[in-house]
């Protein structure tokens, strides 16, 4: 399943790259892309565990860039 989320206050391009790398490492995530320009994040992951994966995504993003908020 592929889903797109809006990001608020994603202020630095390097953070976007770091977030993307961190999300890709989460189990069950097949692909992820964080676009600094569009302030958007697209995650492709296993449908069955999607909610659980999203929780982890929020957690790793908070670690990299605490100011950035994911609109779920």
């Amino acid at each position, binding site marked *: 399943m592929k889903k797109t989320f809006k990001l608020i206050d994603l202020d630095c391009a390097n953070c976007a*790259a*770091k977030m993307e790398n961190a999300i890709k490492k989460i189990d069950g995530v097949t692909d992820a892309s964080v676009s600094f*320009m569009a302030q958007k994040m697209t995650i492709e992951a296993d449908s069955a565990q999607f909610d659980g994966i999203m929780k982890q995504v929020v957690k790793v993003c908070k*670690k990299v860039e*605490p100011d950035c908020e994911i609109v779920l």
Partner: protein
Amino acid sequence: MTRKQKKMFSRILIAFVVFIAALLLPAIWLPGPIPLISVGQDRNGCGGYALARWPIFLIPYLIIGWDILWKAARNIRNGQVFDENFLMCVATIGALIIGEYPEAVAVMLFYQVGELFQNVAVSRSRQSISALMDIRPDYANIQRDGQLVQVDPEEVAVEDVIVIKAGERVPLDGTVLEGTSALDTAALTGESLPRDVGVGDEVISGCVNLSGLLHVKVSKPFGQSTVARILDLVENSSEKKAQAEHFITKFARYYTPIVVFAALALAVVPSLTTGQWGTWVPRALNFLVVSCPCALVISIPLSFFGGIGGASKQGILVKGSNYLEALAQVGVVVFDKTGTLTQGEFAVTAVHPEGIGEGELLELAALAEQFSTHPISKSIVAAWGGTPDQGRAAEVEEVAGHGVRAVIDGRQVLAGNRKLMDRENISVALDHDHPGTVIHVAVEGKYAGHLVIADRPKATSAQALRELKAAGVRETVMLTGDAQGAAQAVAQELGLDQFYAQLLPADKVERVEALLQEKKPRETLVFVGDGINDAPVLSRADIGVAMGALGSDAAIEAADIVLMDDDLLKLPVAVRIASQTLSIVRQNVVFALGVKLLVLALSAAGRANMWAAVFADVGVSVLAILNASRMLKAK
């Protein structure tokens, strides 16, 4: 500026004022010595104790830098060590410790100014790109209980009737039931000439209704309408990243740690051998400031984003940065003939009568062919221009694969191909080798001449091919299912380098594969088609370009780059935008890395102060962003 940016701006102003005050402040005398915050000083010839400078400068430092310190601490706790906040903290705290108080504050101030500027520049360009793509309709007018109400386009169902007033944007795709108007398609196609629509015509969402009132029956829900699909496509284009972007994120991952360790080495190794800590530590601190890769990481996606935005303004949709990158290296362009280089419509291109008048020949042929629905027959009737009178033609008989036999005004008329003439034993004076289809006409058993019917090249095709050559395309190739003669004529007229005729759809894929083998290693192959029947070829080529996509879902789906209208001249424009984007990307990489390496070298040699280092960080970022934003005006 956003609220956040305004707040930052006032913080910078306050810090700046306090900083100037701290610089100008005369010595503050203390009644006695206080450990750490007092310094012994000469006061009018006798000893006294003055307030040390560091608590004074600490005030502006904290005003301007508290959030950086806080973020650095928080990020270290989260395991993110080498981020720019941390680096700025180490550099400025280091400066404070070695007694360079004004420098520490100034560097922090300068850094924050740069960050703010960078922030504003990025959000400005982001906004202007979004504005380029602002074709989303806000509402649809719908009749409810006899009244016109505004609803969200997403709520409108298929088969509903919507009303579009002059000046409004068409919210959904549909068919006109009532009214006539002119539509401005510029936002979708870049084409400035309005398109006239009347009852029965299709209208496409995203266009602007210029003059009349239109009642339109909706044919697709909003999610599948042209405008929603285009927006979706452009917004997702940043997902497909170019190699340059991948390179730079990878580079950033190694660059920062390497520079940080180099700084550490620079601080420790020479100091241990020479003992001059005071010389080497400040030099090492400069390294830390320069180590942030942000200039690169921001400006490269921004350049691509700008290129994609600029292209979409011209009616060229690019589905990803990678395609823009590939398009900049285009070497071979392969065209489908019908509908791409040519209009895809048959027209009479020549009339050669024998023994009768030109008009009479056309008239006889048109009257004989009037009942046929074949495109060739239609083109003859269209060329004649009159309204065929059914009463004048009798005993009309279609001879399958040959032509038509009819009695016109009492005369026996034959119209058809060579085979028909042979069958009826009518001698054709010359064996004409015309590009296109030849329709021979005979009257009362006597040859009366022939008509040549061909698919005309588009008016702009030849110019587009010339411009492609000028933009660096090495070879142009045409593929067609048409006969050799017709293909050759078009290829010569337009100046194509190669053509392959009489190809079946499957042969086209094979041809493209062969051409892919032949091309040079660092160039790409573009296939241009109209998106109908050529999806396999579009996906096989390095870049598939579909044109005339307005209203054709299949084309938008199959292609990597979509030209919204039928104008082939958009292709050289796309190539130019791609090359320009790539050259800006290269400029930014070279410039940013060049300045950073230069400042690193100068710092190691003790020739650059912290000001230069901050310039190499935020100053370079800002310049690179400004350079990237030039793409927004690409033509």
